[in-house]
């Protein structure tokens, strides 16, 4: 689809947050991870979008101490799966709010500042665009360019697993 419209940034809609038990989900996901995806057998630490950056200013973002401390460790995050680059891929973008526009589809849409890129071990066919999900994975921070797509990310969850909330 051509980008026949003005740049419209993703803007926060009102979304009712899922208040379901966090612990139960974590337990299930932790078990899945332990079973076969190489995540160390320790409980994944919950991490929210609000806890990613200590500073979000004009001249850049600064990671929180929590992010720095948790680097290399399993964490669990809740968010929304953005419409993927391809239906089948090894990575997708986790956003705090559902994306009204798909930056992969439309060249004038832009990603929010606080996205997290989720890397899976296997290619997977995505079906739940904009659905609320919970992701477990190994936290990694710092600028990194995906060699296949050129997609630049600041925060990643490696060896990740996800499930619809």
């Amino acid at each position, binding site marked *: *689809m*051509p*980008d*026949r*419209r*003005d*740049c*419209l*940034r993703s*803007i*926060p*809609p*009102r*979304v*009712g947050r899922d208040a379901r038990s966090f612990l139960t989900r974590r337990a299930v996901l932790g078990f899945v991870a332990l079973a076969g995806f190489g995540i160390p057998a320790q409980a994944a630490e919950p991490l929210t979008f609000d806890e990613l*950056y200590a500073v*979000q*200013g*004009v*001249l*850049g*973002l*600064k*990671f929180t101490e929590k992010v720095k401390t948790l680097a290399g460790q399993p964490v669990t995050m809740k968010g929304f799966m953005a*419409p993927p680059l391809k239906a089948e891929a090894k990575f997708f973008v986790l956003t705090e709010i*559902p*994306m*009204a*526009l*798909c930056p992969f*589809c*439309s*060249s*004038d849409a*832009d*990603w929010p*500042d606080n996205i997290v890129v989720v890397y899976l071990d296997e290619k997977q066919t*995505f*079906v*739940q*665009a*904009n659905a609320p999900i919970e992701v477990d994975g190994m936290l990694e921070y710092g*600028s990194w*360019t995906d060699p296949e797509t*050129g997609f*630049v990310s*600041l925060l990643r969850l490696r060896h990740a697993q996800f499930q619809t909330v």
Partner: protein
Amino acid sequence: MRRFLATLAATTFLTGAAAAATIYPIDRATILVGSPFDFKVEFSGVVKPEDVKITVNGQHYKAVFGKDLAFTEKEEKADASAVIVRGVTISDPGIYTVEATAGTETKRVVWDVYDTAATPKAKNIIFFLGDGLSVAHRTGARIMSKGVTEGKANGRLNMDMLDRMAFIGTSSVDSIAVDSANSMSAYMTGHKTSVNALGVYADRTPSSFDDPRVETIAEALRRQTGKSIGIVVTAEIEDATPAAVVSHTRRRADKAEIVEMIYNVKPDVVLGGGSAYFLPQATAGSKRKDDKDYIQLFKDAGYALATDKTELAAAAGSNQPKVLGLFHTGNMDVTLDREFLKKGTVSKFPNQPGLLEMTKVALDRLSKNPEGFFLMVEGSSVDKMSHPLDWDRSLFETIEFDKAIGLAREFAAKNPDTLIIATGDHTHGFSIIGTVDDEKPGTDMREKVGTYDKAGFPNYTDENGDGYPDKVDVTKRLAMFANNFPDYYETFRPHLDGPFVPAVQDENKKYIPNAAYKDIPGAVLRTGNIPKDGDTGVHAVDDVVLQAQGPGSEAFKGYLEESDVYRVLADVFALGKNQLGN
């Protein structure tokens, strides 16, 4: 002009029989005398270089262009030949008939190379561009801001006070519809082009940087005058409208490269959002894919940097020759969120200036140049809030835009050698049809819509006289609707929790109504009338209304196109004459 039209008629009959080549600049292009442009012929098949014949007014092309062409046998992804001559200038005004033939292919175009006044008619031009500014935005802003009693407006908008006007047709080289890139590009270069293109004609090759270029107004001002240049927007500074003042790319999305293009021209005042494209990729928050630090590069080039309202005030008074203000990583927050509701991203960027403050700083700085200035001010989010059908936010943006025009009118009162233009780049399918009255009985919001005599008058108030309604969610408010939309939940009321997001994409890449609004009392599903891959309301093809005052404004009348408006700008500033060293 009559001769030009007669030649055009002849051209129309002559072409079309043989396989058609394409020539850029296009047929009926109007070209500022002496302004550089790229000439390109795209043949529809592979031709031999020795068969290519190009004449200009019957002469060999080189006699007029003064340069040799470059021949490409097979263009990328085209399987066809092309010739290009970069940086052509024509120094004598007149009608130019250009004919290209190769084998059975032939194409003829006619250009009008125009001269300008010998001396400038105005010292300064302030060009206000309300992105997406439609008639309903003006009407709505006037009713919200001033009120109406017994059918008579209780006050006028500043734009209502501008003396002269014209209807502007905005169609594109490739479509009757238009976007902000190619519409503003036509205003800022005098050449119509294709959707998403800036400062180039859109050719058929995949690269967005090899397309045939035309001169932007900023380049023309640097080439011919010593005037200062200012760009003030609330969007990202590399967004389509501001980019059009300086840029050359087939794709407006080339934002990282557009920052470099802004840097190359070095406008004297640059204020807006979009800092993410200035930061080197190693900096968290950067949207660049290289290590260039444009914050540092601009500073090194003599710019005072401001990142919030306080720093802007300091930068305004600094002795640095230029000012760069970047107040957001992306688009700045809109007036309703920034000043009233504190929603959107205001918590992250709490001290953003508004369009009014930015325009004031720009006028103060630019007017120090005795040679005069060109200032472009964009009310960016009139459009950015109209796409998601957030009419209340869009009208607040229109009011703010209008207040900035008021500031310019005050400036022009003291500096009458100033031309003010206020226009839009396209319209939206947006209308006001009456009122919505919560006090009407029942729960069905549709039955609370008042039309004709039952509309009466809304009950907005402006006790503090700031020009904005004291409250946007009054009990009797404007009934505002789009004529095109994706599937969405209509709530018949302002969105106090943040800008409206009518639809979201599903797993099939189709847009479905955003369920976040489903349970708002009175919300009803409206089934869309645009394709399901459309996320928001679209631009209308309807004409734009341009208004103007000051020297040269008498040229605005009847029906014009954006490219004709550029011709007026060029004439008012006498851009056909070199004024450097005067």
